[in-house]
């Protein structure tokens, strides 16, 4: 290469071909350069393109030539002749290579300019022949969409064409694709006959059944089915799914004038409490989908603690987007001077400025109420909570007495039941019809049948749980778990993916209701230096790979997720009360994976020992190529007191831990752990008292 002459053995034939190519190429450059657009010159470029349609210079030359030649002629027939010449050259090129981008583009360019009226019948005939040779040629499908737009063929007619193609071959994924594309458009425009999404989707379910029961092992129909399911279940309107504190709850706050922290007791029970290190009570709103526009003008908070205008709502998200599932604000208890009971009212729904990412407004009025009784004592209380004393997670802590559960009714957290608009039951019925249909399928050992049934059951449970939580006493988790176990056996190539999906089902199962949580996972713990008990939710040894259903866990203060397979903790940022978190013995493979913790201002104790941080070469080198914009904070502010070498080696450590106010951290058993890192951590977290189980000097 590099301009050297080729000097290998070549047959005479190919030498002659190369000679011809070189000659035509030289002619092209000469004509292009000198703007020679004669018949002869164009013919040379046509011959070149017939041999090699990849030469984009030749296509460019022909465009200039056509424009220049058309300036000279006015006669309709002459114009037509010029245009037809171009179309012929494209045809010849496509015979050589039906996937030539340049050739297809040239044809579109010529027709788009409407130099002369197009013969659409001919175009469709030609396209039909080409699609017969390769029904999956995506250039062909793109060209069909182009032709339909150019000739104003109604989308309904094109929809019929996809039906023909599907009928002739159920496996034609491209036809299914085009069908979904056209249908989405028609539904969006609410075109005639496409006003009722429910009716159209019902028909489409019938259509896809035919394909699925004819060729159950084919991917095309299943992906179409997945799309239909997505259309059926995705919520249109944003709703508040849960909140903390729960609606109707009552609390007693015990503060101490000489200290900055305080304790929060459920009114009904003084056995256990929450520890609030900065005497602030978070108010958390969790929506069923990411929303934007939560502010003091769209949400009104009435309380004696702060006036509504001074309230700032913050999205709990790491991305620089304005949309988040979860929004939080903080009430400063320390600001209140006098003892007594006061109520806090949160109302939203009076303005339409809270919107989903797709622009649907939140319109259901919601009113949440809870009360806080202040109990201010002067006496010094013993114990610096979660600081001085080493907090140890252990599994033989006391099981939670049922009546001490921190929320009096689990359903209190879910609040959309009272406010959800009375939706039609079409979607629920559709899902249950589909479930019974697939359960009766003769191909019940087919992986797609199992996967689809798993998806349907999960979607059904989620829908029922949102619609009428108090009625839903039982889920299909056991059944779904069985499907995923089967899938892992049946389709080992995708086993890891199924394990990840299964993890969410397990989490659903264990957090589904109060009984389930109480029975197995609720614990109480106590610090030696304190007389108070704290709630621990113990979700260890469950093969979890990631976090889900956080809307059910907003009340959790101490969470044990150790001995799982967790790779991602995304979602934990919603748990604003979290003080102690155990992630030991998981699969976390970078400090970056801990980023959600930066949003947890109450977190004091963190155990990430025995993970995989630093084990992967690629990961440690990652930020060498990192995008300059990918970080949401001003890096310079965060890292100004660190040396260059520290920044180069431990950028992520500084980035993550600088924000946290940890008193205890355990990172032993990770490849990244060493003395340098320990020194850096002590520098990064000045308040650290315990590192890797040892007291920091």
């Amino acid at each position, binding site marked *: 290469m590099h301009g050297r002459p080729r000097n290998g053995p070549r047959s005479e034939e190919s030498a002659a071909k190369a000679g011809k190519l070189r000659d035509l190429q030289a002619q092209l450059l000469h004509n292009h350069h000198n703007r020679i657009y004669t018949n002869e010159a164009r013919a040379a470029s046509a011959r070149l393109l017939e041999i090699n349609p990849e030469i984009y210079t030749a296509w460019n030359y022909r465009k200039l030539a056509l424009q220049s030649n058309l300036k000279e002629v006015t006669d309709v027939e002459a114009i037509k002749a010029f245009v037809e010449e171009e179309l012929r050259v494209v045809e010849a090129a496509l015979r050589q290579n039906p996937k030539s981008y340049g050739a297809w583009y040239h044809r579109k360019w010529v027709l788009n300019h409407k130099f002369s009226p197009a013969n659409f019948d001919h175009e469709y005939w030609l396209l039909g022949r080409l699609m017969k040779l390769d029904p999956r040629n995506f250039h062909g499908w793109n060209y069909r969409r182009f032709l339909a737009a150019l000739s104003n063929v109604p989308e309904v007619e094109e929809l019929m064409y996809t039906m023909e193609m599907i009928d002739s071959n159920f496996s034609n994924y491209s036809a299914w*694709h085009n069908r979904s594309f056209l249908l989405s458009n028609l539904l969006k425009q609410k075109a005639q006959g496409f006003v009722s999404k429910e009716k159209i989707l019902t028909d489409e379910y019938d259509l896809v059944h035919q394909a699925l029961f004819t060729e159950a092992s084919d991917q095309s129909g299943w992906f179409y089915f997945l799309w239909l399911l997505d259309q059926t279940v995705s919520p249109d309107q944003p709703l508040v799914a849960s909140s903390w504190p729960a609606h109707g709850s009552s609390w007693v706050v015990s503060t101490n004038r000489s200290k900055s922290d305080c304790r929060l007791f459920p009114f009904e029970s003084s056995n256990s409490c929450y520890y609030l290190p900065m005497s602030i009570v978070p108010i958390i709103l969790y929506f069923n989908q990411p929303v934007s526009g939560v502010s003091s003008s769209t949400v009104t908070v009435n309380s004696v603690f702060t006036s509504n205008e001074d309230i700032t709502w913050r999205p709990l998200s790491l*991305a620089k987007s304005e949309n*988040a599932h979860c929004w939080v604000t903080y009430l400063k208890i320390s600001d209140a001077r006098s003892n007594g009971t006061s109520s806090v009212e949160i109302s939203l729904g009076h303005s339409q400025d809270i919107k989903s990412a797709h622009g649907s407004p939140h319109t259901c009025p919601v009113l949440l109420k809870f009360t806080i009784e202040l109990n201010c004592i002067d006496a010094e209380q013993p114990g610096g909570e979660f600081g001085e004393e080493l907090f140890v997670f252990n599994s033989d802590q006391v099981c939670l007495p049922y009546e001490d559960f921190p929320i009096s009714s689990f359903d209190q957290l879910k609040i959309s039941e009272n406010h959800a608009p009375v939706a039609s039951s079409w979607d629920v019925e559709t899902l249950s019809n589909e479930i019974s249909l697939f359960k009766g399928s003769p191909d019940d050992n087919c992986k797609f049948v199992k996967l689809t049934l798993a998806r349907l059951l999960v979607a059904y449970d989620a829908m029922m749980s949102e619609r009428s939580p108090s009625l839903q006493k039982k889920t299909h988790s056991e059944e779904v778990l069985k499907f995923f176990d089967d899938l892992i056996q049946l389709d080992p*190539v995708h086993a*890891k*993916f199924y394990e990840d999906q299964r993890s969410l089902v397990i989490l659903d199962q264990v957090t589904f209701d109060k009984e389930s949580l109480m029975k197995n996972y609720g614990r109480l713990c106590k610090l030696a230096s304190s007389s108070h008990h704290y709630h621990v939710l113990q979700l260890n040894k469950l093969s979890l790979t990631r976090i889900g259903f956080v809307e059910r866990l907003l009340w959790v203060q101490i969470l044990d997720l150790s001995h799982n397979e967790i790779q991602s903790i995304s979602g934990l940022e919603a748990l604003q009360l979290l003080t102690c978190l155990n992630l030991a013995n998981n699969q976390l493979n970078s400090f970056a994976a801990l980023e959600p913790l930066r949003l947890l201002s109450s977190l004091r104790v963190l155990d990430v020992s025995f993970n995989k941080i630093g084990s992967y070469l690629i990961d440690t080198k990652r930020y060498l190529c990192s995008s300059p914009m990918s970080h949401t904070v001003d890096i310079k502010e965060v890292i100004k007191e660190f040396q260059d070498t520290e920044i180069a080696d431990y950028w992520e450590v500084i980035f993550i831990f600088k924000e946290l106010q940890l008193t205890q951290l355990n990172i032993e058993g990770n490849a990244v752990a060493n003395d340098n890192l320990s020194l850096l951590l002590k520098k990064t977290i000045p308040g650290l008292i315990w590192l890797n189980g040892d007291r920091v000097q």
Partner: protein
Amino acid sequence: MDRSSEFDKMRHVASLELMMEWMPSPYESQEINRLTLAHFAISGLAILGALDQIDKDRVINWVLSLRAQPKDKAELEKGEFYGFHGSRSSQFDRHDGKQQDLVPNGSHLASTYCALAILRIIGYDLSSMDSESIITSMRQLQQHDGSFTPIHLGAETDLRFVYCAAAICFMFNNWTGMDREKAKEYILRCQSYDGGFGLVPGSESHGGGTYCAVAALRLMGFIEADILSKSTLWTTINVPLLLEWCIQRQGVDGGFQGRANKASDTCYAFWVGGVLKILGAYHFLDKNALRRFLLSCESQYGGFQKFPEDATPDLYHSYYGLAALSLLEEPGLVPLCVELGIPSPEII
């Protein structure tokens, strides 16, 4: 990982070195994309850790000789793109006649990406280059809908060239060459119902299109590295569907297909595997099965074929086969900067 079957690195080094000097006749039709072919050979040697075999100065001089440069500032503002020609055959000699102003300039976005990739890999300091004319003139290639045409005279616009533009801006660390918001909007319009991305809005999902979309969003800073482990916010793109689509591209033979119901093909182990890597979902694929598939596409003469049953390897599949093995962390291979599609220069 099961590495019982051996990967013989030297055989690939020998084959790529041969390609550097002499190319078989089937490549004739690719003459116009010579820079791209050179990128595959040189970047392939870089992945193999065998860059010491090539004469770097000669390569740098050759690549730079394909650059189109405006005569002066006035010419730069005329609307032409001043990047790199794909090969000598699309390049006009500027000193051969009087009508210089008429000389059409054949700079191409893909060639420009490949030229910069080669220079970066070889260790040429891109900041020493006058990048202003490339960046300024590139902006004019961006269309109203946010897409890019690869040449100023106009050609098909699709995600491939949005990706090239993003990679060029990234390599120069200068984003004035494109309107990122518009480019993002265009990319989002290309996401299909099944979660993958087609090359143009409304088209069927395609492994290459999906890579261009996700890698460009990553380069432009719209999605973070390891989006799955870090962000709850998936409003930019529908990540769960995208993930599902990518995962299901791995077939029972272990390889990846580019579209549903197509045969597994070496290059998609990089295109789709790269998307999974960027998303932080690479652990979901069956690595042993993928490695077995890739080794079954390995040619006994070095290089990779498109399909296991093919008789001869080609340069394109050889490069992406090596890139895919590097993603699998094959010992002895240099790690990739996956969003740029080239080995990380800092490590070489």
